């Protein structure tokens, strides 16, 4: 992991140094050739032609100075050398620094300046400077350097192609490289196409990850978020992928060898202009503390430049949303080319169903180990007592008590199974009139009401409204509420059931005049196996699952259960079902 980037950096540095050396050699060669040309005056004829031209174009010169006197009017030797070699140096520098086009212009300008300067010199101060050696040097530097430059570029491309070809994870492609320019350009084109495919493949991979995933920089600023992440917290992440990517992102895929060693992720943004992971955590979870602490710990581990963390080091942290969905916040560092952490990839894994399954298993165990066993134990105790004549109960009482325990077991089992059905993944829905549902439920409870001398008052005002529901579950839910109301009502006090439209809902109210439920007890009411009322001889028995069932059924239909009550004020339980689940 660490040797490859170092090799890459070395290769890049080597290229850099090699071109510098080549340039220096070229410069020295050009200067030497120019010096030789100037010393032996190889281009004397060109110089003389130029001089003739200069003199001929300025007629007064010809009269002032005899033609053979020019040899004595030469510029001083040192200045001559200087004026010859300096343009060559300038041309080489221009070729080194400028782009080929600008360098060509620079060379042309230099040549023009040399010739023009020479003519002007003759005219103004009557000194002669022979420019042809310098012109020759300048003209020599440009093509030579272009040749070296192109060679270097081609060599660099070939070697980079080979290096990229060795990169793991890239799909293999024919590496046969034609050494012509066209061939190499084709090879570069192929390679960039492969890289583009690769990038697309990876970003598609991120996009289609089954979990909400974001990639952050080390400050927590979110760089990329996949579709699921955006859907999870649209308020924060909407449009995140359209923001310009900071240069820091480059650090994730591999940082260049030269340039600053650090500071590649802190210059483009201060962490404020870009939504951060803490924003996501705070928006999504009402209690973000553990999530933020986990994030800080993760960042802390990265800053300490700890060795590469394996994913098993971090188990993530579980967070609950407002609507009680559970998410596992889980992060792992991303490493740049040098093996140093360059960012963090963070997933929010939805573990709601896992937690629900766990809760159900706990409920089942609780149910079997306690609720289901205790009536059986009571029956055995009764039988045991019966075997001793002095403590035996009269037979009718014994049978009555055994029957009570058996019924209790059955009722418990039924409640438990119904709750499991309501929680099951596949409910069977049918179009049913709500009025029918309520009537079925109240008819079922009629016998119970009668034994307790309670009248069931019905106020049904939703004729013809049919909803798409699971009828058996919903009838049972309403029946549970009515049965509770009857059980907790004082004898003779009526229980009222009303059905009416309420905005976008259909509401089913069950109103009793019983003891009511204190506000502080109401939260516990919908938890499994909790009984709010003190257990006494006259307290109605129940499994503690009835209201959980009602709540589950309402929620499975997209509705909710409302409770209006306080100690001593009776209770009104309402099931609200959304009208949008209306049939047809």
């Amino acid at each position, binding site marked *: 992991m660490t040797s490859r980037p170092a090799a890459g950096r070395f290769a890049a540095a080597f290229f850099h140094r090699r071109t510098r050396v080549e340039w220096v050699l070229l410069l020295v060669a050009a200067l030497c050739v120019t010096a030789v040309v100037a010393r032996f005056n190889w281009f004397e004829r060109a110089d003389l032609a130029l001089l003739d031209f200069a003199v001929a174009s300025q007629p007064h010169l010809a009269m002032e100075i005899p033609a053979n006197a020019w040899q004595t009017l030469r510029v001083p030797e040192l200045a001559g050398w200087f004026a010859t070699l300096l343009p060559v140096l300038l041309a080489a520098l221009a070729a080194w620094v400028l782009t080929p086009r600008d360098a060509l212009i620079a060379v042309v300008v230099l040549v023009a300046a040399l010739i023009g300067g020479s003519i002007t010199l003759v005219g103004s101060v009557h000194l002669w400077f022979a420019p042809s050696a310098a012109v020759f040097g300048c003209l020599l530097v440009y093509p030579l350097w272009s040749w070296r430059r192109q060679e270097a570029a081609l060599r660099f491309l070939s070697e980079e192609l080979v290096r990229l070809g060795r990169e793991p994870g890239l799909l293999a492609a024919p590496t046969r490289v034609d050494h012509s320019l066209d061939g190499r350009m084709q090879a570069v084109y192929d390679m960039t196409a492969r890289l583009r495919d690769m990038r697309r493949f990876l970003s598609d991979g991120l996009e289609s990850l089954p979990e909400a995933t974001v990639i952050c920089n080390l400050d927590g600023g979110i760089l990329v978020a996949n579709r699921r992440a955006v859907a999870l917290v649209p308020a924060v992440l909407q449009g995140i992928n359209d923001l310009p990517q900071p240069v820091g992102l480059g650090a994730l895929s591999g940082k260049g060898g030269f340039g600053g060693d650090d500071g590649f992720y802190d210059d483009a943004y201060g962490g404020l202009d870009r939504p951060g992971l803490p924003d996501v955590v705070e928006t999504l979870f009402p209690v973000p503390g553990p999530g933020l602490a986990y994030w800080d710990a993760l960042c802390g581990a990265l800053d300490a430049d700890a060795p590469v963390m394996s994913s098993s080091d971090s188990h993530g942290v579980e967070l609950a949303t407002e609507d009680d969905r559970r998410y596992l916040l889980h992060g792992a560092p991303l490493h740049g080319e040098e093996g140093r952490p360059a960012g963090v990839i963070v997933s929010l894994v939805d573990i709601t169903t896992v937690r629900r399954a766990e809760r159900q298993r706990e409920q089942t165990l609780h149910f079997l180990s306690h609720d289901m066993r205790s009536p059986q134990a009571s029956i055995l105790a009764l039988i045991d007592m019966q075997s001793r004549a002095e403590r035996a109960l009269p037979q009718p009482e014994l049978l009555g008590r055994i029957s009570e325990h058996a019924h209790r077991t059955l009722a418990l089992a039924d409640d438990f199974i119904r709750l499991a059905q309501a929680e099951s993944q596949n409910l069977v829905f049918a179009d049913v009139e709500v*009025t029918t549902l309520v009537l079925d439920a109240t*008819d079922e409870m009629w016998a119970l009401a009668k*034994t307790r001398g309670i009248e069931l008052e019905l106020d049904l005002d939703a004729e013809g409204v049919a909803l798409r529901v699971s009828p058996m579950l919903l009838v049972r839910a309403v029946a549970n509420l009515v049965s509770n109301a009857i059980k907790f009502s004082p004898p003779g006090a009526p229980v009222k059931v009303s059905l009416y439209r309420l905005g976008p809902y259909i509401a089913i109210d069950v109103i009793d005049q019983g003891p009511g439920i204190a506000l502080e007890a109401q939260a516990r009411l919908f938890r499994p196996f909790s009984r709010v009322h003190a257990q006494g001889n006259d307290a109605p028995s129940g499994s503690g699952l009835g209201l959980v069932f009602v709540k589950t059924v309402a929620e499975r239909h997209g509705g909710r259960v409302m409770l209006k009550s306080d100690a001593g004020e009776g209770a009104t339980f309402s099931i609200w079902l959304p009208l949008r689940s209306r049939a047809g």
Partner: protein
Amino acid sequence: MRIASVEDDAAQAAQIRQLLEEAGFSCSSFNTGFAFQRALRDQSFDLVLMDWQLPDISGYELVNWVRQHSGRLPPILFLTSRIDEGDIVAGLSVGADDYLGKPLRPAEFLARVRALLRRAYPDAVQDDELMRQGSYVVDARRRTIALAGQGVELSPREFDLALFLFRNIGRLLSRDVVEQAVWGRAMDAGSRTLDTHISRLRIKLALRPEHGVRLSSVYSHGYRFEAVSTADA
């Protein structure tokens, strides 16, 4: 009337036999589906009671088998301890005539048995011009229904439906049967005409246990209209 009872639990089988014999029927018990299948080769029964969960053969297969071997009769009443709608729908769709949940409630059980027998073997053309049931008096000739002596206004279609229900008290009626009898044709699966009429009837006639009758829905199958003893609580 000879009734076959297929029940693997000895105690429950004994209970069923005792209830039926006390009511004047003769009852043979079989503790496995295969034993019952063997017996059906050389005996005939007027009614079959079967547990939905037998050790050797599923209730579904057994109902299917009976229907293929002896046609529409004898009527089949299946007993299930599961409160799963799926079982009930499966049983009724494969040819069972009615179902009962366990544990058995003796009065309900006998009422169901009698209703099934009455339906399968009508004694004679009943003279049902004037029917009394609970607090209701239904006069088929004058097309009126009175609840506790007070006449109730019904549309002709509603009256037809009410009359059909009162004539078939105790029976599990599939939607098709009711629609055929009252509208003269079976309606589309999505149609809620029947349901609308039924709930209107329930409200207008106050068809509630306090008036001695009870109408219950057997979802995705049909309705059952039955008599309830006001003392039965």
